[in-house]
C-alpha cells in the first residue's frame, strides 16, 4: 500500500465510534452541574414576573433578606448600579437590562435574584419577596403591536417598531407589471424552541482586587457576545474570563441566550463577595430562556403562465419579544442573501420590520430564520401550482437554480457555492418512490381517506458572515460604524515533550462529536491514529485562541472549524517535515507521515518515530535546521474571503456555504381523530463532503425531530393578556419516540469549493424544510389553501369533521351561563332566584362583613372605605392551596337595583382580576332575582404551569361566591337546589 502524505487518509469520511461516548455512557460526563464549585459557593434563584406587562410599584426584599441562609437579594437598582444596559443591535432609543428595572415586559422576566446557602433556601426566600405590580395592557401579536393605539413596551421608542427597512433588488415593479399571474400568501409563523434537555447554568466569581469576573457557563457562542457581556459588566474584555464546561447537554442555538444571566449572576457574585452558582430550572427555561421569533409574512410572487417566478415581494414583521437582545434582529437577516431560496429569481423587494411585544425575548434557535422564510416560500410554490393548475413538482423544476450556474450569485447577494439541485431532486423523487406514493394517494382517495403529499426545496446556509447583521443598518449607518464581515475560525495544535498531539478549537460542541471528527482530521494529516490525538473543545477566553465567530452555531463546525484544524495540522506537518528531513537526509517534500512514523518517501525503512520528531523542538531546539522550524504549537485563524460586508446596494453574502435539501412527505389524516400520520418522509441532502456519515445522519434525524415537533406539537403560546400558556413540559409538547418516524435520508454530494475540506453545514436544514413540507402534505390531503402551525388535530378537525350541527331539540344545554374560556379570559353570566327582598340583598352587598362572609375563604377583612374592602383569602382546589390578598370595590351604585363589583386577588400562585355587573330584580314580593355577568382574567404562576387546572378553579371560586351570596341572602330558602343550579350555570356540574 502506497499511502503518501499528500493523499487523504482513510479516517475522515468514516463513521468511527465517538471518543466522547465512553465517559457519557457510564455517567462520567462533565456538564456544568457536575463540576465541583469552590467552598462557600452560594446558590441563586430568580424571582420572575407573573405579568406580561406591568409597572413595578414597589419591591420589598426585607423578609427574604432576613431568612437564615440568605446572603443577598438583588433587585433592578442593584444591578443597574454596577452594570450598563446590554448592547442593542439597531439604532433605536431602547435599553436592554437582564432584570426588570421599573417595569416587567414578559412573564418570567427576572425581578430579583437571591443568593443563599442552597437552592431550596433560595427558593424559600423568593416566596418572601413582596412585589407590588400595576398591570398594564399587553400586546402579543406582531401586527397588533404596530397599531397606533397599541400598548407601548419601551416608552423611549414611541411605539413598538424597532426597525423598518426596505430593500430592492432587480426590477420587481416591472416584473409584477408584466406578470401573467400574481399569487400571494400570508403566514403567521409561531414561536417554538429546541429546548435542550440540560438547562442553562452559570457559576461566577468576582475578584475585587483586579475588578475582574471569572465565569463558567454552558454558553455556546458566538463569542461576539463576550464583548456584550464585558461591556455590560463595565470591564475590559481581559477582565472577563469566560469558560465553558467540557460537556454541554444540547443547545441548538438556545444556550447563546444564557448571556443575560451571566451578567446577573456575575453581579450577584460581586454583591456577595462569594462564588455564585445558578442552574436554571425547566419552568424558568420555558418562560424566560429564549426561543425562535414568530413572524408575520406576506409574500407575493409574479408568475408567468408556465409557473416561472419573475419576482418576489416580501413583507416581514418580525417579533423579537420584549427586548431586542444581541444578536437580534439577526433571525430576520440571517437569510437575507437567500430570500429566493433554491430558485433563480432576479427581482425581489423586501420590507423588514422588527417589533417588540410582551413575550420572551428571542435568540438563536436551530434553523435560525430559515423556517420563517421557507414556510411562506414553499407554501407559495404549492399555491402557485394549485392556482395555475400545474404539477407542484413542475413549478419547482422550472424555478430551480439551473445546473451549471454555480457558483451562483442570488439577487440579494448570496453566493451559492456549489450544487446540482435538479439532479438531487430527481434522484430524491426516484429513490423516494414518489410514483408509488402518488398511486397510494389515488387509492386512498378512492376509499374516501385523507392522504396528501408535500414537497419542499430548500437551500441550507452555513457559516454565517459576522457582517450580515449589519444589513439592518442603512449603508450610511454602516459606513459610520465601520465594516463588519468575515468569520474567523481558530484551531491550535500542540505537541508536548513526549510528542503526543493535542488539538484545541473554540467550537464548544453540545453533542456534535467535534472531538471525534477533529481527531480524524488531524490524524489523517499527521499519519496517526485518531485515538492518539487528544482534542479539547471547551473554551477559556483567558488562555485560548478565539475570536468573535468562535462557538457552535450556524452549522460552522464541519465547513469551517475542521478546515482551520486541517490548516494548522498541515503547517505543523510542514515544519516537522523540515526537522525530519535533516535527520533522514532527504528533501522535506519527500518526507511522509504514516502509521505513527515519519519516513523517507522512497525508502520507508529510513524512518523516525513521529513522537521523536514531534518532541524534538522541546528537547533539542539547537538541532533544528532553523528557528522557523520550531514545532511546538500552531494556531491558525481562518476566515473565508468570500464573506464580505454588505455593499451599498445592500447585497450581502450572508453565509459561506449553501447545502441543498429536497424533501418529500406523505401523510394520512385520521377521519376520526384528525391526527396526522406520516406515511413516509424522504430527505435528500447535499451537504458537500461528508466527514462522518454517522454524525451526518444523527444531525439530520435530530433536526427532523425538532422540525416535526414544530410542525405538529410545539408552540410557545401566550394569552392576550401576555400570560404564558406553555410553562411546563405538559403543555410545551416535545415529541417522543412514539411521535417521530424515521425519515429516509438520501445524499447527493457536491463538495464546497470554498471550504478546506469541501464540507457544508447539515445540522439545521430539516428545521427549515420539514415544517413546510409536512404542512404542504397536510394542505394537499385536506385540499385547503391555509394551514398554520402547529398542525393541531383540533384545528384540522374543522375540515376533517365538517360543520357541526346545533344540539338537538331545545336550546343549548346552558342557556343562562354562556361561558367561553378564551385563553385566560373567563366570561360568564347567570341568575339566581332568592327568597329575600331586594333591599336585604342590597344591604348585604354594601356591608363589608356580610360581603366578605360570601367571599370564599376570606379572613382578616378590612374596610378601606364605604365601598372598598380588602381581605386575606385562602383559596384552593385539590392540593393546590394558596393565600391571596384580595380587594373588592363597589361602584355604579343604583340602589337597590344594580351595582358593579370589581375584585382582585394576588398571591404567590397567581392573580385574578374581575368585574361583575350585579342586578337585583324583585320578581315577587320577598323574592329577588340576582342577575350577574362577570368577566375575569387570571394569570401568574398557575396560569403558565397549570392552565388546565386554573380555568376550572376560577369557575369553582366564582361559583362559590355567587352561591354563597344567594345562600346568605336567601337564608333557609333553597340553598341546596340553588347551589346545584348555580354550579350548573357556571358550567362545572
Amino acid at each position, binding site marked *: 500500500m502506497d499511502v503518501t502524505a499528500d493523499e487523504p487518509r482513510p479516517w475522515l469520511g468514516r463513521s468511527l465510534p465517538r471518543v466522547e461516548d465512553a465517559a457519557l455512557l457510564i455517567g462520567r460526563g462533565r456538564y456544568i452541574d457536575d463540576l465541583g464549585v469552590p467552598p462557600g459557593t452560594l446558590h441563586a434563584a430568580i424571582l420572575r414576573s407573573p405579568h406580561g406587562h406591568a409597572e413595578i410599584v414597589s419591591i420589598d426584599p426585607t423578609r427574604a433578606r432576613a431568612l437564615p441562609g440568605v446572603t443577598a437579594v438583588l433587585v433592578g437598582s442593584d444591578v443597574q448600579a454596577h452594570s450598563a444596559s446590554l448592547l442593542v443591535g439597531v439604532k433605536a432609543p431602547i435599553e436592554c437590562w437582564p432584570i426588570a428595572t421599573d417595569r416587567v415586559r414578559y412573564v418570567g422576566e427576572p425581578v430579583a435574584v437571591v443568593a443563599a446557602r442552597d437552592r*431550596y433556601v433560595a*427558593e*424559600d426566600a423568593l*416566596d418572601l419577596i413582596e412585589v407590588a405590580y400595576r398591570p398594564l395592557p399587553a400586546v402579543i401579536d406582531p401586527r397588533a403591536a404596530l397599531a397606533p393605539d397599541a400598548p407601548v413596551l419601551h416608552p423611549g421608542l414611541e411605539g413598538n417598531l424597532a426597525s423598518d427597512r426596505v430593500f430592492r433588488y432587480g426590477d420587481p415593479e416591472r416584473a409584477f407589471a408584466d406578470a401573467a399571474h400574481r399569487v400571494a400568501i400570508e403566514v403567521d409563523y409561531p414561536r417554538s424552541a429546541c429546548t435542550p434537555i440540560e438547562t442553562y447554568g452559570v457559576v461566577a466569581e468576582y475578584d475585587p482586587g483586579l475588578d475582574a469576573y471569572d465565569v463558567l457557563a454552558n454558553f455556546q457562542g458566538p463569542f461576539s457576545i463576550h464583548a456584550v457581556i464585558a461591556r455590560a459588566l463595565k470591564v475590559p474584555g481581559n477582565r472577563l474570563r469566560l469558560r465553558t464546561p467540557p460537556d454541554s447537554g444540547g443547545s441548538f442555538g438556545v444556550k447563546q441566550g444564557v448571556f443575560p444571566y451571566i451578567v446577573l449572576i456575575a453581579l450577584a457574585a460581586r454583591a456577595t463577595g462569594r462564588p455564585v452558582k445558578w442552574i436554571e*430550572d*425547566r*419552568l*424558568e427555561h420555558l418562560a424566560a430562556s429564549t426561543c425562535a421569533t414568530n413572524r408575520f409574512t406576506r409574500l407575493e410572487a409574479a408568475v408567468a403562465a408556465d409557473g416561472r417566478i419573475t419576482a418576489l415581494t416580501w413583507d416581514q414583521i418580525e417579533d423579537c419579544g420584549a427586548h431586542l437582545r444581541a444578536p437580534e434582529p439577526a433571525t430576520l437577516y440571517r437569510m437575507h442573501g437567500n430570500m429566493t431560496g433554491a430558485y433563480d429569481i432576479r427581482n425581489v423587494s423586501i420590507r423588514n420590520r422588527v417589533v417588540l411585544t410582551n413575550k420572551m425575548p428571542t435568540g438563536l434557535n436551530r434553523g435560525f430564520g430559515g423556517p420563517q422564510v421557507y414556510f411562506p416560500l414553499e407554501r407559495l410554490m404549492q399555491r402557485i401550482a394549485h392556482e395555475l393548475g400545474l404539477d407542484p413538482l413542475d413549478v419547482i423544476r422550472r424555478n430551480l437554480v439551473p445546473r451549471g450556474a454555480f457558483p451562483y450569485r442570488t439577487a440579494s447577494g448570496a453566493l451559492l457555492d456549489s450544487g446540482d439541485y435538479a439532479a438531487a431532486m430527481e434522484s430524491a423523487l426516484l429513490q423516494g418512490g414518489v410514483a408509488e406514493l402518488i398511486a397510494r394517494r389515488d387509492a386512498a382517495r378512492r376509499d374516501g381517506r385523507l392522504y396528501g403529499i408535500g414537497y419542499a426545496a430548500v437551500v441550507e446556509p452555513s457559516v454565517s458572515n459576522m457582517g450580515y447583521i449589519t444589513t439592518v443598518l442603512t449603508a450610511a449607518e454602516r459606513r459610520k460604524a465601520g465594516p463588519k464581515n468575515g468569520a474567523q475560525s481558530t484551531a491550535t495544535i500542540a505537541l508536548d515533550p513526549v510528542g503526543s498531539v493535542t488539538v484545541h478549537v473554540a467550537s464548544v460542541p453540545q453533542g456534535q462529536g467535534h472531538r471525534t471528527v477533529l481527531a480524524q482530521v488531524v490524524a489523517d494529516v499527521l499519519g496517526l491514529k485518531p485515538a492518539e490525538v487528544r482534542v479539547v473543545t471547551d473554551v477559556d477566553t483567558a488562555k485560548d485562541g478565539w475570536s468573535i465567530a468562535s462557538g457552535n452555531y450556524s452549522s460552522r463546525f464541519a465547513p469551517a472549524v475542521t478546515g482551520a484544524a486541517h490548516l494548522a495540522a498541515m503547517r505543523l506537518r510542514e515544519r516537522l517535515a523540515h526537522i525530519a528531513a535533516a535527520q533522514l537526509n532527504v528533501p522535506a517534500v519527500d518526507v511522509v507521515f504514516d502509521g505513527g512514523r515519519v519516513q523517507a518517501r522512497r525508502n520507508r525503512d529510513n524512518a523516525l518515530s513521529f513522537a521523536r520528531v514531534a518532541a524534538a523542538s522541546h528537547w533539542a531546539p539547537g538541532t533544528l535546521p532553523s528557528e522557523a522550524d520550531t514545532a511546538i504549537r500552531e494556531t491558525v485563524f481562518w476566515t473565508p474571503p468570500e464573506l464580505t460586508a454588505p455593499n451599498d446596494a445592500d447585497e450581502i453574502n450572508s453565509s459561506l456555504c449553501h447545502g441543498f435539501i429536497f424533501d418529500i412527505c406523505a401523510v394520512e389524516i385520521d377521519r*376520526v*381523530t*384528525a*391526527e396526522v400520520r406520516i406515511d413516509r418522509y424522504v430527505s435528500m441532502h447535499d451537504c458537500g463532503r461528508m466527514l462522518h456519515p454517522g454524525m451526518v445522519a444523527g444531525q439530520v434525524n435530530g433536526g427532523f425531530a425538532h422540525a416535526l415537533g414544530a410542525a405538529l*406539537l410545539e408552540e410557545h*403560546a401566550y394569552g392576550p393578556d401576555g400570560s404564558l*400558556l*406553555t410553562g*411546563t413540559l*405538559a*403543555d410545551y*409538547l416535545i*415529541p*417522543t419516540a*412514539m*411521535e417521530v418516524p424515521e425519515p429516509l435520508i438520501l445524499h447527493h454530494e457536491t463538495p464546497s469549493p470554498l471550504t478546506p475540506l469541501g464540507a457544508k453545514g447539515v445540522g439545521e436544514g430539516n428545521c427549515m424544510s420539514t415544517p413546510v413540507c409536512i404542512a404542504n402534505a397536510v394542505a394537499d390531503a385536506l385540499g385547503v389553501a391555509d394551514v398554520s402551525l402547529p398542525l*393541531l*388535530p*383540533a384545528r384540522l*378537525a374543522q375540515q376533517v*369533521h365538517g360543520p*357541526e*350541527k346545533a*344540539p*338537538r331539540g331545545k336550546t*343549548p*344545554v*346552558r342557556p343562562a351561563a354562556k*361561558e*367561553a*374560556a*378564551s385563553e385566560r379570559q373567563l366570561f360568564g353570566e347567570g341568575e339566581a332566584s332568592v327568597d329575600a327582598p331586594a333591599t336585604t340583598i342590597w344591604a348585604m352587598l354594601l356591608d363589608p362583613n356580610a360581603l366578605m362572609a360570601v367571599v370564599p375563604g376570606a379572613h382578616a377583612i378590612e374596610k378601606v372605605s364605604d365601598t372598598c374592602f380588602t381581605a386575606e383569602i385562602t383559596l384552593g*382546589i*385539590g*392540593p*393546590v*392551596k*394558596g393565600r391571596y390578598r384580595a380587594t373588592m370595590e363597589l361602584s355604579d351604585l343604583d340602589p337597590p337595583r344594580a351595582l358593579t363589583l370589581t375584585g382582585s386577588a394576588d398571591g*404567590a*400562585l397567581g392573580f385574578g382580576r374581575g368585574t361583575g355587573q350585579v342586578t337585583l330584580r324583585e320578581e315577587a314580593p320577598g323574592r329577588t332575582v340576582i342577575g350577574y355577568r362577570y368577566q375575569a382574567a387570571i394569570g401568574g*404562576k*398557575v396560569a403558565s*404551569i397549570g*392552565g*388546565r*387546572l386554573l*380555568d*376550572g*378553579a376560577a369557575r*369553582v371560586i366564582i361559583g362559590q361566591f355567587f352561591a354563597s351570596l344567594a345562600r346568605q341572602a336567601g337564608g333557609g330558602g333553597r340553598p341546596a337546589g340553588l347551589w346545584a343550579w348555580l354550579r350548573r350555570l357556571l*358550567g*362545572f356540574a
Partner: protein
Amino acid sequence: MKPARFDYVAAASAEEALEALAQEGGNARILAGGQSLLPMLNMRLARPTVLIDIMGVDEWRAVDRDGDVLRIGAAVRQVALEQDPDLARFQPLLAAALPWVGHPQTRSRGTVCGSIAHADPSAELPLVLVALGGTVHLRSRRRKRVLSAQNFFTGMMSTAREDDELIEAIALPKARTRTGYAFREVARRHGDFAIVACAAVVNGVRAQLAVGGVADRPALCELPAPGAAGLDEALDDFAWSLEARDDLHATARYRRELVRRLGRTTLEEAVRCRA
C-alpha cells in the same frame, strides 16, 4: 423548582397514618407513590405541612380478588396490576386502560388509589372506576365509609373525601360474562393527559359509555347499543351535555366530535369483545 418545607411521616400501620391525618387534617397530604403530588410540591403549587407516606402499611399493599370484586389497596402500585397476568381476564377494562396511565417510569411508583384521590378529570383510572361502577373505601380514625365512584368525584380535582379521611382501597367488579369492555383515548402524545378518553361496557341489555377529559370529572351515560336505533342522537346529546371547553390543546368542538366518533368506535369495539 424545589419543594417548600414539610415534615415527613412514614406510617408503619393504618392506625399511625390515620392518627397523623386526624391531627393534621387539611394541612397533610398522603404520599402514596407521589407521581401526581411531587410535581405539585416541586412547583410549590401544593404546600402541605406534613406528608404521610403510607407505602409501608402492609395491610394496604394487598390486591384482593374477593369473589366478584377486585379490591385494590391504597399502597398498590400501578405496575403491580399491570404485571398481573390474570388482570386482563379478571377486569379487561382496567387492563386496557393501565398502559395509558403516564409512562412505565411513573407507573412503577404511582399507586392506583393515589390517582383516584387526585381526581384529575383527564386521568384514566378515575374514568375506569366510574365506567365499572366501582366504589371508593374511605377511612378515618372516626369511621369507614364506602362511596360509589359517581358520588366520590365532585369536580375538577375535587372529591367527597373529608380532610381526615384517606382512600383505603377501591373496589371494582370482576368482568361479567357476555359483557364487552373497551378503552380508547386521544391525547396530544402518548402518555399525555387525555383530550378525550372513552371506556365502554356493553352487554346484552345495555351499553354504557364513560368519558374523561371533557367535563370536570368522568361522565357516564347509558346509550342504545351499537346497531340499535338512536345511538347517534344519544351520543350527540351526551357530547353536548358534557359542556366541553376550549383549551390550548383542543377545542370544545373537537372534544364533542371525539365523544361522538371515538365514543361510537369504543362501543363497537366493546361489542366485538363481547363475542
